[in-house]
């Protein structure tokens, strides 16, 4: 039995690839496998070329793969485009053998799709082929299909196609691609995307307001919250544009809601004045920026990590902010809650920087212990606590005498104190001032909060050898790729380590910089052209890495991509 296997299903939008993939992933979850799924799709509703990849492996935390062991083609495009991804020993289940691009050591088997079911059921045929090749129980697959199609009115035809494909495949490939399960038994695992996890974690962290303008790949964060709004007690508003979305969130925050604004780079670009307003008003807001390649419309449905600089510098003037970057689906949930807490406590903007790859990928994870999350953010509780601590005399929202810059934050309507917020420079009471001495005092007050944030920075996680010759450094969604790379280096007997950042700003280098300085070689890898995080570390910490591996072809970082460049450019000795 194999340790791992990557299957790519390719076809057109509208053929139901994701449904086949989701059913397979539920079945794999129930039968005790670890896996990750990730999608590549074109920006259209029908047609084009979409892929749904399923990597079954032993590790609970892994990254995507550029290569595949099996490609299931639901159209001729896939025969041509994805067949070259097959590794030696791989299998192409072709739509049209003549269209297939054949590589050495790859077997090709043409599937008589037309005989196995109608075009509508083509995704169920793909599922049947997978179930057979992986040696999964047919009964389990039929259960999944039944459950799904019962709700959609009739599972007869899908089941027929599933079974026809399964029995066609059994004598040819049945069980030949079996992977050993990683999690025996049935612990009950959560299968959700990064965006689902982010929405869930945010709500558990107290987020009860979301304003947004739809933009891939961030939209599903808001769609989830919309679906849960009535049951969980949230308000979600689709704004007329991104400028409205961020200003609505700030108004809601002033009123005592805990707001979240999901968007992607282009939409976020429109929000930057609002980010600056959050800094000036000292009004909490969580902004989720799900990155995709730019500039401008770029590649709307692909992935990149190129908006770090955008969120780092967004907004005119200087004000504190924090930038978190989840590395896994679990992180998406935990850091969304953490972001809400940091925004409330630092009284300003906090970013969650994710990307298309992480937003859309799924993996079975341990269900969140929602009751074990930190107490949800509750601005009314903040109001009551701060009101109880008020010094005698008039209430000043921007009392500059506070040691850490975090002045008493009350809500309008919950006491007789008037709460006055002003986007102009202001005196402690919130009124406009052009007194330049006040300007300096208030700017000092606000910037003290950056120090407060820095003291609470999440330290990066270090994996690997304590005494490492080579340390890889990555951030955000490349966690899985980094761990895969490290595992490969270990297999080769290298003394290596991997430092992964979940928080990109502010940085506190005290506990990790010495490690990098001691390492023989330090190699950063990032999903962008410029090495934006490496630049930030160089600027903030005066540290120069030996090499920066960058990827900006719209695909996520993978271990093979990183290893290839390590070897090609500098050799892995």
């Amino acid at each position, binding site marked *: 039995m194999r340790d791992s296997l990557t299957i790519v299903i390719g076809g057109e939008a509208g053929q139901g690839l994701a449904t086949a993939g989701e059913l397979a992933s*539920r079945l794999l*979850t*129930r039968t005790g496998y670890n896996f990750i799924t990730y999608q590549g799709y074109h920006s259209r509703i029908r047609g084009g070329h979409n892929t749904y990849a399923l990597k079954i492996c032993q590790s609970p935390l892994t990254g995507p793969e550029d290569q595949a062991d099996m490609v299931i083609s639901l159209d001729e495009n896939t025969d041509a485009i994805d067949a070259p991804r097959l590794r030696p020993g791989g299998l192409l289940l072709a739509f049209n053998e003549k269209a297939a691009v054949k590589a050495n050591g790859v077997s090709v088997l043409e599937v008589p799709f037309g005989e196995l079911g109608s075009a509508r059921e083509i995704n169920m045929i793909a599922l049947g082929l997978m179930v057979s090749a992986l040696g999964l129980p047919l009964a389990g697959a039929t259960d999944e299909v039944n459950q799904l199609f019962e709700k959609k009115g009739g599972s007869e035809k899908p089941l027929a196609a599933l079974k026809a494909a399964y029995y066609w495949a059994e004598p040819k490939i049945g069980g030949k691609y079996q992977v050993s399960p990683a999690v025996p038994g049935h612990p*009950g695992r*959560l*299968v959700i995307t990064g965006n*689902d996890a982010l929405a*869930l974690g945010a*709500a*558990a962290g107290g*987020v*009860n*307001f979301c*304003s947004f303008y739809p933009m891939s790949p961030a939209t599903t964060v808001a769609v989830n919250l919309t679906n*849960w709004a009535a*049951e*969980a*007690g*949230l*308000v979600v508003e689709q704004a007329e544009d991104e*400028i*409205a*979305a961020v*200003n*609505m*969130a*700030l*108004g*809601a*925050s*002033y*009123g*005592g*809601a*805990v707001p979240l604004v999901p968007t992607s780079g282009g939409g976020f670009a429109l929000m930057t004045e*609002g980010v600056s307003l959050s800094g000036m*008003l000292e009004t909490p807001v969580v902004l989720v920026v799900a990155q995709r390649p730019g500039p401008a419309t770029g590649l709307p449905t692909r992935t990149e990590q190129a908006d770090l600089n955008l969120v780092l510098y967004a907004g005119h003037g200087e004000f504190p902010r924090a930038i978190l970057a989840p590395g896994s689906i679990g992180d998406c949930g935990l850091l969304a809650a953490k972001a809400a807490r940091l925004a409330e406590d630092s009284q300003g903007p906090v970013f969650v920087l994710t990307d298309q790859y992480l937003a859309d990928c799924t993996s*079975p994870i341990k*269900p*969140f212990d*929602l*009751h074990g999350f930190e107490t*949800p953010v*509750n*601005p*009314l*509780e903040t109001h009551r606590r701060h009101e109880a601590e008020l010094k005698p005399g008039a209430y000043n929202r921007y009392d500059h005498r506070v040691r850490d810059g975090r002045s008493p934050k009350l809500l*309008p*309507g*919950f006491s007789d104190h*008037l*709460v*006055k*917020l*002003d*986007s*102009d420079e202001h005196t402690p009471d*919130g*009124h*406009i001032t052009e007194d330049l001495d006040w300007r300096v005092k208030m700017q000092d007050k606000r910037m003290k909060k950056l120090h407060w944030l820095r003291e609470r920075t999440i330290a990066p996680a270090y994996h690997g050898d304590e005494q490492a010759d080579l340390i890889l450094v990555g951030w955000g969604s490349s966690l899985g790729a980094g761990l895969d790379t490290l595992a490969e280096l270990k297999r080769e007997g290298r003394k290596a380590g991997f430092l992964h950042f979940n928080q990109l700003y502010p940085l506190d280098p005290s506990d990790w910089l010495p490690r990098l300085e001691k390492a023989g070689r330090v190699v950063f890898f990032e999903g962008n052209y410029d090495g934006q995080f490496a630049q930030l570390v160089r600027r903030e910490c005066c540290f120069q890495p030996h090499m920066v591996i960058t990827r900006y072809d719209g695909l996520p970082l993978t271990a093979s991509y990183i290893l290839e460049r390590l070897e090609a450019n500098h050799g892995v000795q």
Partner: protein
Amino acid sequence: MEFNKTPIEPAWCPGCGNFAVREAVLKALNDSGLKKRDVAWVSGIGQAAKAPHYIETNFFNGLHGRSLPAATGLKLANPELNVVVESGEGCHYGEGGNHFIAAIRRNINLTVLVHDNQIYGLTKGQASPTTDLGQSTKSTPLGVLNEPFHPLSIAISAGCGFAARGFSGEIAHLAALIVEAIRYPGFALVDILSPCISFNKKATFASYKERAKKLPESYDPSNREAAMVQAAKWDDEIPIGLIYRRDPEDHPSLEMKIAHARGLDKPEVLAGHPPARDRLEAIMKQFVY
């Protein structure tokens, strides 16, 4: 008196219409019987947008053009607050034009006061969205080439349930309109003729005084077609008063629609109500396999 001026000296030019609007606003607030703590002001940027600094109130003085989204968020977060939005026509109809239409279409319960002086005052004399066609300004040496924005016609077309016009020279009349606007349980617009004495030599106090004519008592503001005629009038006569009022029973506000959809009598206050974790746990369980 519950509502008073602040001791801050306004940054307005002596003789500015804004002073009279403030008088009307204070009278309306005190006549309305509201408590200070239950009122919050949202404004944008410009001379009119400084208004909340000069009355004792809660306020959110945000960005140019963005007062309506901020006010929408505030009202959705705390529907028990009476939210008043005050800014100039450049802020509401120019920079914030998209938000103006969207907020009306939402029918969020806001009282929206627009100081309309047909000129950009704070930036010293450029054309505004309502400057008359052909009028020469610092930014339009050939005269204004664009058709002026017709706020009341556009508002009514977009579904606004309360559309009124007041004049800073008629303080009691304006105050009565503001009281009604505050009481209206939906988006209520009061476009206020308020002259800029420094930069608009055409739309002067005298010219407004001459042209502003109160609607007769016999006028029925519930007739939408008749209201469209009055809303469009902009010549020797400019009608002032309540031009259009739709029965709020037939036109529930956004926050009431949300509440009704959830089987509630009134909208929920979000402060102090984080999403219930047991509900979230139930939602999460749907994705456990």
